[in-house]
C-alpha cells in the first residue's frame, strides 16, 4: 500500500472512531434503533468516497464526523426530535447577535423583577466586596513588589536561642559581621537597626523631630536601590564614628525641604551636630519603616568587633543577597557551620545561640501569615455562601419562570439557547454584584486602613490595584457561572408540557425543584453557622482581652517623647536637672496631678533583655530573659502602679548604691519562696569584677509589656537617676481629659528649652488600643463576615419558605375551606422547611467543632470548642431561621380560601 493509501486508511479509521463515539453518546432508544445501521452506512459511504478520490474522501469524512457529533449533541440536549431541524443547510444566528439578544433579554428580565435583582446583587456585592477587601490586604503582603531589586535572592538571617525562647530574634552585630565574612553563599550582607532613633533637627531655630535608621554602608547596594539624587552610603562610613553623611527619604526631602535639589552637600543641624546630606532615595524606598526620615551610617568604632557587648547585644537586623547561583539551602548549610564555629569560639555569648535564614518577604510577613490565612479562608466561605444563596434564589425564581421557559420552548426556542440565556442573566447579575462589591471593598479597605495601617511596614500598602481588580473580576465571573449553572441546566430540562400544566395551577406535587433549593438552604445554614461560630469565638476572646487589667491606669493619663540634645545637655547632671525641672513645672500646672519618666511605655513592646545572676547563687543557677526598663518614682505613681513590697526609688538613690525595682512576675519566677528584697543581682551569666551589682529594693505590680493578650514577663526597673538617658517618655496623670493637657505640656517644654520638640503626645488609652489593634481588626472582619453570613442565611430561608407558601396557596385555600385553623397552617408551613435547617445546623456544628481549632492561635481565654459560644450561635441561627420562615408562613395563613380557589 502506498503512502496515500495509508493516509486514506487512517482518515477512514479516525472518522469511524468519531462516528462510533458520537453514536455511543446518543440516547439509548436512538442507538438501539439506528446505531448499527448508521455506522454501516457511514462505512460504505466512506468506501465509496475513497474510490472517488482524495477530495471526496476528505469531504465525506469531515461531513460525517461533524454531522454525527452534531446529531449526538442535539439528541443529548433535547429528546424531543420533532423540534430538531435536520436541514443540511442549517443556518446559525451570528454569535454576536445572539449575545446581544441574550443581554437585552437579561436586562429586561432584571428590570421586570427588581426585588430579586436587588437581593442577588446585594448578596453578591457583600461576598465579592469581602473578597476584594481581603484580597487587597493579602495582595499587600504576598504579591505587591518589595522595594528591592530581585527580592528572590534576598534573605534575612535571624538568631535563635532555645534557652531564651528566641525564634527569630535580632542579631548581635559581631555575629552578623562574621556571617558576612564566612558564608560564601552570601554575595554581601547588610545590617540595619530595627528601630529608628529620633533626632532633633533645628531649621531656622525651630526644632523638628526626625526618625533616623542606622545602617551599614552597603545597605542600599545589597537592597539593590540607587539614590534618586546624589549617592548612597559607603562601607567605610560604617566604621567612622564621626561620619556625618546621611541619606534622606523622598518624603522628608519633599515635606521638610520642599524638594530642594540643592540639598546635596548641605549641612543639617541635628541639635549641634552637623550632618551632611549626600543623597536622596527614590519615593518607593522607605525600608525598614514608613517613618524613616533618613539613613545614617552605623558609625561604629573599628575596634567594636572585638568587644563583648558587640556580640552580646542583639539589636540589628540583616539583609543578605545570595551569591549568583547559590541556593538558600547552600546558604543555610554554610550558615550552620559558621554558627557552630562561633559557638565554640565565643561560649560566653554564643553557647546556645543559633541562626536561621528565610526569604525577606517571609520574614516581613511572619506575624500576619496566620491571621491572613484565617481571614482568607473565612472570606472564601462567605463567597461560597453568597453564591449558594444566589443559586438558591435563582432556582426559586427559575421554577417560578418555568412557565415562561415552557412557552418559549413550545414556540421553538431550543434548550441550548434557553440555558445560555439564563447563564447570561446570571453573569450580568454577577457583574453588577461584582461592581457593587468592588465599591464596598474600596470602602472596607479605607476603613481598615484608618483603623490600622496594614501592609509590610514601609514596604507595601493596601490598594485596590490591577491585581485586585482582576481577582474581583475573576471571582465575579466564576460566581456568575457557579450560581448560573444549576438554574441553566434546570431551566433547559424543564418539560414544557408539565410546566405549562403546572404553571397555571400551583401544584404541590412538583417537589423536585423544591428539594434542591431546600438542600442548598441547608448548606447555607451550615456555612453560616461556621462563620458565625468563628465570629462568636473571636468576639468572646476580644471581650476577654479587653477585660485584662493592663496593670496601669489607661484613663486620664498621657505620654510624650522628649530628647535632651547632647549639645546642650552633655553631662548627667544637665540631663537630670532638665528632667527634674520638667517634672516640677508640669506638676505645678493646674489639672496635672503627677508626672514621671519611663524609657519605654508599657504595652509598647520591650526594649532589651538579658540574663542575670543573684549574689550567692550557685554556678549553675542563672536567670534567663529578664526585661529591662528605666524609670523614676513618678512613673509608678502617675500610672497608679501599686507598690507591693519594699520601696520605690528615692531622691537619695541618685548618688547612692545601684538599686532596682522588680515586678511581681520577676519575684515569682526567679525568687519563688525567697525574699527578693535586698537581693543583689548582676546582668551577667558569670559576673566578674567589672559587673555592676544592683540591689532589689521594691516589688511593684505587673504591667503587660506587649499586649493584654500576652502574658507578663519578668521585668526589672532601673533607676533613671542612676542609669540615665537623654531620651525618655514622660507620663502625665491629669485631673480631667488628658488631651486638654497637651497645650500646657507644649508651653512648659517650650519655656524650659524652645529647641526641644515633644513627639507623639498621646493618651495611654490610645497606646492600649493600638496594642490590641490586630485583634480588633480580626474581630471586625470576622464579625462582619459572621453578620453578613447570618443575613444571607436569613434571606435564603425566607426565599425558599416564601416560594413554598406561594406554591401552596391553592392547597392552603382548600385546607382552610375544609376547616383547617390558621395555627395548623402556620405549624405546617414552619415544620415543612425546618427539617433542612436543623440538618444544616447539625452539619455546621460538626464543621465548626472540626475547624475552629485553626483559630486557636487567635483566641484568648476561650477554647476553640467553647460550648457557650457554639451553643449560642446554634440558638441564634435557629432563631433567625425561625423568624425568616415565620414571615412568609404567617402571610400564607392570611390567605382568603375563596380567593385562592377562584384564582385557578
Amino acid at each position, binding site marked *: 500500500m502506498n503512502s496515500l493509501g495509508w493516509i486514506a486508511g487512517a482518515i477512514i479509521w479516525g472518522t469511524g472512531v468519531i462516528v462510533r463515539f458520537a453514536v455511543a453518546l446518543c440516547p439509548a432508544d436512538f442507538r438501539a434503533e*439506528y446505531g448499527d445501521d*448508521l455506522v*454501516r452506512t457511514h462505512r460504505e*459511504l466512506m468506501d465509496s468516497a475513497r474510490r472517488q478520490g482524495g477530495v471526496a474522501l476528505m469531504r465525506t469524512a469531515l461531513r460525517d464526523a461533524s454531522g454525527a457529533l*452534531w446529531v449526538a449533541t442535539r439528541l443529548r440536549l433535547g429528546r424531543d426530535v420533532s423540534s430538531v431541524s435536520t436541514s443540511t443547510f442549517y443556518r446559525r444566528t451570528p454569535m454576536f447577535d445572539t449575545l446581544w439578544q441574550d443581554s437585552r433579554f437579561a436586562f429586561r428580565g432584571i428590570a421586570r423583577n427588581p426585588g430579586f435583582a436587588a437581593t442577588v446583587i446585594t448578596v453578591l456585592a457583600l461576598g465579592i466586596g469581602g473578597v476584594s477587601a481581603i484580597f487587597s490586604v493579602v495582595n499587600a503582603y504576598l504579591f505587591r513588589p518589595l522595594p528591592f531589586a530581585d527580592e528572590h535572592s534576598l534573605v534575612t538571617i535571624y538568631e535563635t536561642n532555645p534557652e531564651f525562647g528566641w525564634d527569630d530574634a535580632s542579631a548581635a552585630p559581631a555575629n552578623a559581621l562574621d556571617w558576612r565574612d564566612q558564608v560564601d553563599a552570601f554575595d554581601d550582607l547588610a545590617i540595619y537597626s530595627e528601630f529608628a532613633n529620633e533626632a532633633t533637627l533645628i531649621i531656622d531655630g525651630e526644632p523638628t523631630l526626625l526618625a533616623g535608621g542606622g545602617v551599614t554602608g552597603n545597605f542600599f547596594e545589597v537592597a539593590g536601590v540607587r539614590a534618586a539624587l546624589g549617592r548612597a552610603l559607603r562601607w567605610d562610613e560604617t566604621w567612622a564614628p564621626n561620619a556625618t553623611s546621611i541619606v534622606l527619604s523622598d518624603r522628608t526631602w519633599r515635606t521638610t525641604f520642599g524638594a530642594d535639589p540643592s540639598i546635596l552637600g548641605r549641612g543639617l543641624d541635628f541639635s549641634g551636630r552637623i550632618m551632611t546630606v549626600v543623597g536622596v532615595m527614590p519615593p518607593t524606598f522607605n525600608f525598614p519603616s514608613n517613618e524613616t526620615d533618613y539613613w545614617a551610617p552605623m558609625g561604629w568604632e573599628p575596634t567594636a568587633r572585638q568587644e563583648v557587648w558587640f556580640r552580646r547585644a542583639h539589636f540589628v537586623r540583616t539583609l543578605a543577597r545570595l551569591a549568583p547561583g547559590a541556593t538558600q539551602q547552600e546558604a543555610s548549610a554554610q550558615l550552620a557551620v559558621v554558627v557552630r564555629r562561633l559557638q565554640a569560639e565565643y561560649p560566653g555569648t554564643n553557647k546556645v545561640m543559633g541562626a536561621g535564614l528565610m526569604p525577606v518577604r517571609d520574614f516581613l510577613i511572619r506575624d500576619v501569615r496566620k491571621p491572613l490565612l484565617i481571614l482568607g479562608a473565612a472570606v472564601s466561605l462567605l463567597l461560597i455562601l453568597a453564591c449558594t444563596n444566589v443559586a438558591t434564589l435563582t432556582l426559586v425564581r427559575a421554577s417560578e419562570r418555568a412557565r415562561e421557559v415552557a412557552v418559549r420552548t413550545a414556540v*421553538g426556542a431550543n434548550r441550548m439557547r434557553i440555558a445560555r440565556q439564563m447563564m447570561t442573566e446570571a453573569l450580568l447579575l454577577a457583574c453588577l454584584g461584582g461592581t457593587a462589591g468592588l465599591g464596598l471593598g474600596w470602602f472596607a479597605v479605607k476603613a481598615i486602613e484608618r483603623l490600622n495601617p496594614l501592609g509590610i511596614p514601609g514596604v507595601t500598602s493596601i490598594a485596590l490595584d490591577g491585581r485586585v481588580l482582576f481577582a474581583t473580576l475573576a471571582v465575579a465571573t466564576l460566581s456568575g457561572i457557579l450560581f448560573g449553572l444549576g438554574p441553566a441546566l434546570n431551566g433547559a430540562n424543564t418539560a414544557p408540557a408539565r410546566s405549562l400544566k403546572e404553571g397555571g395551577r400551583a401544584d404541590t406535587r412538583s417537589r423536585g425543584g423544591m428539594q434542591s433549593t431546600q438542600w442548598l438552604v441547608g448548606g447555607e445554614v451550615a456555612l453560616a453557622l461556621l462563620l458565625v461560630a468563628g465570629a462568636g469565638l473571636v468576639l468572646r476572646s476580644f471581650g476577654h482581652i479587653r477585660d485584662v487589667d493592663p496593670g496601669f491606669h489607661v484613663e486620664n493619663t498621657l505620654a510624650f517623647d522628649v530628647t535632651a540634645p547632647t549639645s546642650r545637655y552633655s553631662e548627667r547632671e544637665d540631663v537630670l536637672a532638665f528632667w527634674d525641672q520638667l517634672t516640677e513645672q508640669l506638676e505645678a500646672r493646674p489639672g496635672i496631678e503627677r508626672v514621671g519618666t519611663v524609657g519605654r511605655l508599657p504595652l509598647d513592646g520591650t526594649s532589651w533583655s538579658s540574663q542575670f545572676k543573684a549574689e550567692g547563687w550557685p554556678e549553675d543557677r542563672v536567670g534567663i530573659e529578664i526585661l529591662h526598663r528605666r524609670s523614676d518614682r513618678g512613673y509608678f505613681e502617675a500610672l497608679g502602679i501599686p507598690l507591693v513590697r519594699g520601696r520605690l526609688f528615692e531622691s537619695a538613690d541618685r548618688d547612692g548604691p545601684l538599686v532596682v525595682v522588680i515586678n511581681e512576675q520577676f519575684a515569682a519566677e526567679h525568687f519563688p519562696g525567697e525574699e527578693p528584697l535586698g537581693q543583689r543581682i548582676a546582668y551577667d551569666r558569670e559576673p566578674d569584677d567589672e559587673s555592676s551589682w544592683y540591689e532589689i529594693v521594691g516589688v511593684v505590680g505587673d504591667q503587660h509589656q506587649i499586649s493584654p493578650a500576652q502574658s507578663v514577663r519578668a521585668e526589672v526597673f532601673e533607676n533613671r537617676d542612676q542609669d540615665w538617658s537623654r531620651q525618655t517618655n514622660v507620663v502625665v496623670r491629669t485631673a480631667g481629659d488628658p488631651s486638654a493637657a497637651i497645650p500646657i505640656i507644649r508651653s512648659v517644654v517650650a519655656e524650659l528649652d524652645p529647641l526641644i520638640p515633644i513627639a507623639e503626645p498621646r493618651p495611654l488609652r490610645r497606646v492600649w488600643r493600638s496594642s490590641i489593634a490586630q485583634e480588633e481588626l480580626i474581630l471586625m472582619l470576622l464579625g462582619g463576615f459572621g453578620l453578613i453570613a447570618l443575613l444571607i442565611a436569613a434571606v435564603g430561608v425566607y426565599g425558599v419558605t416564601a416560594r413554598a407558601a406561594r406554591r401552596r396557596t391553592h392547597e392552603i385555600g382548600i385546607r382552610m375551606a375544609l376547616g383547617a385553623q390558621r395555627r395548623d397552617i402556620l405549624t405546617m408551613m414552619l415544620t415543612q422547611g425546618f427539617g433542612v435547617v436543623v440538618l444544616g445546623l447539625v452539619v455546621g456544628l460538626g464543621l465548626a467543632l472540626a475547624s475552629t481549632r485553626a483559630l486557636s492561635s487567635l483566641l484568648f481565654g476561650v477554647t476553640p470548642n467553647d460550648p457557650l459560644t457554639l451553643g449560642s450561635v446554634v440558638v441564634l441561627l435557629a432563631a433567625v431561621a425561625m423568624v425568616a420562615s415565620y414571615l412568609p408562613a404567617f402571610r400564607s395563613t392570611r390567605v382568603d380560601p375563596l380567593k385562592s380557589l377562584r384564582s385557578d
Partner: protein
Amino acid sequence: MRPLFHVPPGLSMSKSRRSSQGLTGLTYQILLALAEIKQHGYGILKEMEERGGPSAVPSTGALYLALQRMESQGLIAGAPAPESPAADARRRYYRITEQGRDVASEESRRLAVLVSTARDRALLGEPLAPKHGKA
C-alpha cells in the same frame, strides 16, 4: 391568505424557516428516494448523490436523525428487506407510507407551481439546475 401547503396532522411546523417553504430539503429528498422502492440508508444517500451531486448529500448522522423524525411523524415506516439477491437482510429498509406519499405529492405540486412561475418569468432560460426542492 390561504396557506400554500396543507399541514398533515402530526407534522411539526414549529420552525419558521419551514412554514413558508414547505418540507425541508432533506425530508423531500428522502420521500422522493422512497417513492418507488424500499431502500436502506446507504441507498437513499446514493440516490441523493446521483440526483444532486456530492454536495447534496447530508451527513450520515443527519440522515438517520431525519429518518427517525419522519418515522415518528408517520411519513415513512420500517420495511422487511426486498426479496432480491442484492438485498442485505441485516439492513434496515424503509418504505413511504400513504401519508408520506400525500405529503410528497402536495409538496411536489407546490414546487411545480413555483417552478412554472419561475419559467414564466424567464428565470429558467437554461436547462434546470440539478438542485431540487429548495429555491
